[in-house]
């Protein structure tokens, strides 16, 4: 295990930024720390880098407790959110900064820097100052500055956050390719679920300083452990219900009964996640006894790839329903019929 975080807590004044969080990361992994603002994801990254010390718990790198080890002595390298490029140094000197601190001979430094700049196609920019670069170029300089020391662990704080949408996807793929090529472990902080799902081997979801779930992207999306994860990733609907004697989960607020693939004992209260894209919307039809509901179409939002519809159910709850763009959407205010397969019902732990 390259990195082990054991029950770390960190308090800033009255706020508990991290609350007994544990996480293990293997060498060569790409892990995304996903969470909203105030979830503690950036604090966790700064704790691993050594800029903050945990109030409780331990950070172990290659089995060694990092307590009291300053950032300069840790084998990790950080890519800062606003890149933190040295404005008074050229691109070359920025990238060379870490190598020079190692006391590497001048010729070796030059060779390593050139090689690193070539890796991201910035050889021609070596003489420029950071303010003469575009946002995407700056991001790549920051990345290369961290990678040139060949650190086993690279920490990235919202590395794509400052880029415009068009650049973000391509740069993300570049990031992924670099991680594969170098074999380094990447830990990336992000608030963008699409980014986390697309790039990471595993996604760790943080909420209020706790680790809610850590799983590969597909598992996280298809088997969210909690209501929070289900809602945070893909905006799933959550239906609350109680198991009936008939083997169906009766959801009063939604006004429907669900057939589960593995139903628990009768009387059990259970929350179920239901993805908007798994629900089929029809204008009329006969209401099946299970995995279906009727309601009134309240809102339609065009999203390019489809329509996001809000349907008010008979029981009072509203469901988000995604309709592919090639389907016709009935006008607002019309009664509609919703249906979904039993496999779409995902039982939640909490």
């Amino acid at each position, binding site marked *: 295990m390259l990195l082990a975080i054991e029950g770390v807590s960190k308090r800033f004044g009255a706020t508990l930024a991290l609350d007994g969080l544990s996480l293990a990361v293997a060498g060569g992994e790409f892990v995304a720390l996903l969470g909203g603002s105030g979830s503690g994801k950036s604090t966790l990254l700064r704790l691993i*880098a050594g800029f903050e010390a945990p109030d409780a718990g331990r950070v172990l790198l290659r089995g060694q407790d990092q307590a009291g080890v300053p950032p*300069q002595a840790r084998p990790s390298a950080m890519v800062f959110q606003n890149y*933190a490029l*040295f404005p008074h140094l050229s691109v070359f000197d920025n990238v060379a*900064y*870490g190598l020079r*601190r190692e006391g590497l001979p001048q010729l070796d430094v030059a060779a390593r820097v050139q090689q690193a700049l070539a890796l991201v196609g910035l050889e021609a920019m070596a003489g420029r100052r950071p303010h003469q670069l575009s946002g995407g170029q700056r991001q790549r300089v920051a990345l290369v500055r961290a990678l040139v*020391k060949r650190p086993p662990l690279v920490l990235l704080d919202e590395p794509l956050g400052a880029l415009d949408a068009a650049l973000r996807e391509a740069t993300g793929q570049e990031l992924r390719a670099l991680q594969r090529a170098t074999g380094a472990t990447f830990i990336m902080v992000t608030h963008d679920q699409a980014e986390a799902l697309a790039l990471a081997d595993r996604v760790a979801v943080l909420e209020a300083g706790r680790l809610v779930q850590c799983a590969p992207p597909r598992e996280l999306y298809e088997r969210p452990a909690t209501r929070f994860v289900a809602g945070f990733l893909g905006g799933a609907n959550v239906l609350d219900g109680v198991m009936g004697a008939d083997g169906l989960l009766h959801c009063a607020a939604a006004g429907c009964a669900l057939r589960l693939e593995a139903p628990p004992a009768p009387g059990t209260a259970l929350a179920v996640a239901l993805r908007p894209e798994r629900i089929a919307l029809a204008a009329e039809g006969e209401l099946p006894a299970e995995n279906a509901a009727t309601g009134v179409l309240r809102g339609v939002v065009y999203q390019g790839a489809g329509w996001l519809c809000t349907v008010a159910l008979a029981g009072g709850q509203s469901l988000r329903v995604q309709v592919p763009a090639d389907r016709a959407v009935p006008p607002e205010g019309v009664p509609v019929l919703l249906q979904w397969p039993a496999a779409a019902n995902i039982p939640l732990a909490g």
Partner: protein
Amino acid sequence: MLRAIPFGWLLAFVAVPCLLLLAIAFSATAEGVPPFAWGRFSLEAWATLTEDSFYLEAFLRSLRVAFTTAALCLALAFPMALALARAPARWQPALVLAVLLPFWTGFLLRMAAWVGLLRDQGWLNGVLLGLGLVEEPLPMLYSTPAMLLGMVHAYLPFAVLPLYATLLRLDRGLEEAAADLGASAFTVFRTITLPLAAPGAAAAFLLVFIPAAGEYVVPEMLGPPEAQLVGRALWGAFFQDRDWPLACLLAVLLLAVLVLPIRLFQRLENRP
């Protein structure tokens, strides 16, 4: 139209007075009030200045004193400004106030206080004599160290404030990035903090150097009587010798000498 106002102001209160000074500098002296003849061109003042090495020496001595004062202020101001900028945000207004507090007392009063402290019958000598550390009073007042002490006391806030402003704007993330790349605390300071604060340091230096070069009161009250500075020479020419052309020429030359550091300061201020 609005843009004309600052230019009009500069024209009326800087350019016109300078031209008047220049006109007087190249006029002949005369009996009467004022003691010069308008329109009678003369190189008399210029000749005095070039022939008597006293004035050139006063100029050079002034620049040397100004340089030393500015250097001492910078050396003291840097750690002060750094401590200010790194202090908890809620303490900073009070600490900045402490730096500015001397301004609440009159400048002459502060210099007079130094006289009281340093003179032969002053407080310091009183304490030294009382403790038996010295047999007779140490001659401290009217010396170059006493003058520099007063100069540094008078000008230190002018050096602290621009440095503080610069260090406050400095992105702490840059220092963290340097530390993360393996730089020791001292190396971070040397390679990141210091170069990025250099424009602020230069501004601080010039903000002290420019007024210190023409300083009259401090050398007069605390400095050695034999080593005259340009401010004293100017005062003497104006009030003692009633040689207005010479006094005006000295004033214009002092301004001319200071144009270079003033331009330097402006270029620093206008940097992106």
